[in-house]
């Protein structure tokens, strides 16, 4: 019996995850042997090289199927997210060394926490059991709580971390309670068992199963910052060191959406009529509220924080279509959104006047940037146009796929609301472009520009990818379609 258990584990299928843990442990050892107070560059290089090996092992070692007795499922969906999440983490790590030195949080734990967060996120994308989803969410969140509060000397960082932590642990309770109720109804926490149960009952569910589904939905809505569960995100995003804000608004969000997709498409697929109605309202609220709040911001960092709420709303529009086209549009958008958002945040770091100052990210600092630093202004313009969804950037195709998928599935009203919201968002994105290109230079607001080679490299990579996927989106869409196909 025991031999059977071991052969059902298929430990080797989780090779990339094991490698992430090995990299984290190696990074700890490197940190131990480095004398205290020295540069964290060795830890950074260890982490990045290790993660490159992780990507290589994901791409070149093919070993799909369930592992750990069906607790996790390795399929093309998992592999897609493994690669995307690891790439986003590498970009963030690559630009971090100079930045954490600038804001005086140069400690090795910064990289270690990112690695542990990455491990949790990878676990979430492959989890085939609600308890593993829970484990992944917690591994990711605990690391993120610490990362948000990393700027200990800054009050807003502490405030953001505490708010995120309190609300996050509260949501965890919702999630666990949801799992408990579903277990009470189904008798298992495995997603496939839940599917079988829902196939038997159809929409005629006992109230306990509905309550469980609803609580799980609320927990995911919190983790992906959907209105009305978004209250933590602007403060956490503003308080966090900006590299972490860029990270949080992309990779953990993508991971949460991955687990969200797998649970709701595979597990709760039979009762999709129920949860798509809930998500319809959530999508409308998320897009609209995020937009209205972003309109009023004068701080670039806060504007991007609120606009990331709006983008989560677009993703929900794609998700609630509940078919291959919508799912593929969602994966496509998650990838390009990751690159354009990280790019925009990195430019914001470059122009940040003073991290400790609340007005360090003021939009007035961008006045006449095109005459001062034409390259930076041009790159920022690419990201702003992409976020607004204007061709020829990838942002246009991302939104096009999402809204056409919504129309094809009969959600015409929702698509109209989405396009209107997208039009509203053009105002605050173009406002940045106008400030950079059409306003006079103002000597008073001009601060230093923090533009190091690693930063320039990362921003240019993001910009090139955003343009490339805008001109040739077919390839990525094909990969996304194949990946989402694994859920059917």
């Amino acid at each position, binding site marked *: 019996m025991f031999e059977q258990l071991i052969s059902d584990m298929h430990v080797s299928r989780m090779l990339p995850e094991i490698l992430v843990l090995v990299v984290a442990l190696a990074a700890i*050892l490197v940190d131990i042997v480095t004398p205290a107070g020295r540069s964290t560059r060795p830890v950074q290089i260890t982490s990045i090289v290790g993660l490159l090996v992780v990507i290589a092992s994901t791409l070149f070692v093919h070993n799909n199927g369930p592992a750990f007795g069906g607790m996790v499922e390795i399929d093309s969906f998992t592999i897609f997210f493994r690669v995307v999440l690891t790439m986003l983490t590498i970009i963030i790590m690559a630009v971090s060394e100079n930045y954490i030195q600038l804001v005086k949080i140069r400690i090795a734990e910064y990289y270690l926490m990112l690695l542990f967060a990455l491990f949790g996120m990878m676990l979430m994308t492959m989890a085939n059991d609600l308890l593993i989803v829970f484990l992944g969410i917690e591994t990711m969140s605990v690391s993120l709580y610490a990362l948000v509060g990393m700027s200990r000397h800054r009050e807003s960082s502490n405030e953001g971390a505490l708010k995120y932590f309190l609300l996050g642990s509260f949501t965890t309770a919702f999630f666990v309670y949801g799992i408990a109720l579903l277990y009470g109804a189904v008798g298992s926490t495995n997603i496939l068992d839940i599917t079988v149960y829902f196939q038997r009952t159809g929409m005629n569910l006992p109230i306990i199963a509905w309550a469980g589904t609803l609580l799980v939905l609320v927990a995911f809505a919190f983790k992906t910052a959907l209105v009305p569960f978004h209250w933590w995100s602007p403060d956490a995003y503003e308080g966090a060191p900006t590299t972490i804000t860029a990270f949080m608004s992309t990779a953990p969000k993508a991971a949460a959406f991955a687990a969200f997709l797998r649970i709701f498409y595979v597990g709760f697929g039979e009762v999709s009529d129920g949860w798509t109605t809930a998500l319809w309202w959530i999508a409308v609220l998320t897009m609209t509220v995020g937009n209205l709040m972003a309109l009023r911001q004068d701080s670039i960092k806060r504007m991007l924080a609120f606009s990331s709420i709006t983008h989560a709303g677009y993703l929900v529009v794609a998700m609630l279509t509940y078919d291959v086209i919508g799912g593929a549009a969602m994966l496509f958008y998650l990838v390009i959104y990751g690159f354009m958002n990280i790019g925009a945040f990195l430019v914001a770091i470059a122009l940040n006047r003073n991290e400790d100052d609340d007005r360090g990210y003021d939009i007035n600092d961008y006045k006449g940037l095109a005459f001062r630093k034409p390259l930076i202004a041009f790159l920022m313009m690419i990201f702003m146009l992409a976020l607004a969804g204007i061709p020829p950037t990838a942002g246009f195709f991302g939104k096009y796929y999402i809204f056409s998928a919504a129309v094809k599935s009969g959600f015409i009203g929702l698509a109209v609301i989405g396009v209107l919201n997208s039009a509203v968002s053009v105002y605050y994105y173009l406002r940045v472009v106008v400030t950079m290109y059409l306003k006079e230079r103002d000597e008073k607001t001009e601060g230093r520009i923090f533009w190091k080679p690693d930063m320039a490299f990362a921003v240019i990579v993001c910009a090139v990818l955003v343009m490339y996927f805008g001109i040739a989106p077919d390839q990525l869409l094909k990969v996304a379609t194949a990946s989402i196909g694994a859920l059917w």
Partner: protein
Amino acid sequence: MLPRDFIPVLITFLVVGGFAWITLLATHLLGPKRYSPEKMDTYECGVDYRDDARSRFSIKFYLVGVLFVIFDLEVVFMYPWAVNFRELGLFGFASMGVFLVILTIGLLYEWKKGALEWE
């Protein structure tokens, strides 16, 4: 209406509750009563039990607490492992080895960061 599978849980509740009540009652009736201020404290631990909750105490207590929990749990995992050592074979040995290596790296980390120094 109660599902039959949960009857053992109910019985456990009754046994646990009964045991607690009987113990309380027995000690109350049988025990000698000699009072002193320390003895009347809620917890006889030497720390004033009614104090301002916002008082500050050393972070070291927290660290020691965390370290205790980690190594306490390590032993909890090792007991069932040791009992089944023969049946688990090489796989079990390797699994525990990996677990111990991870914990040891954690211990090295704490040591290097000074979490083990009281003064």
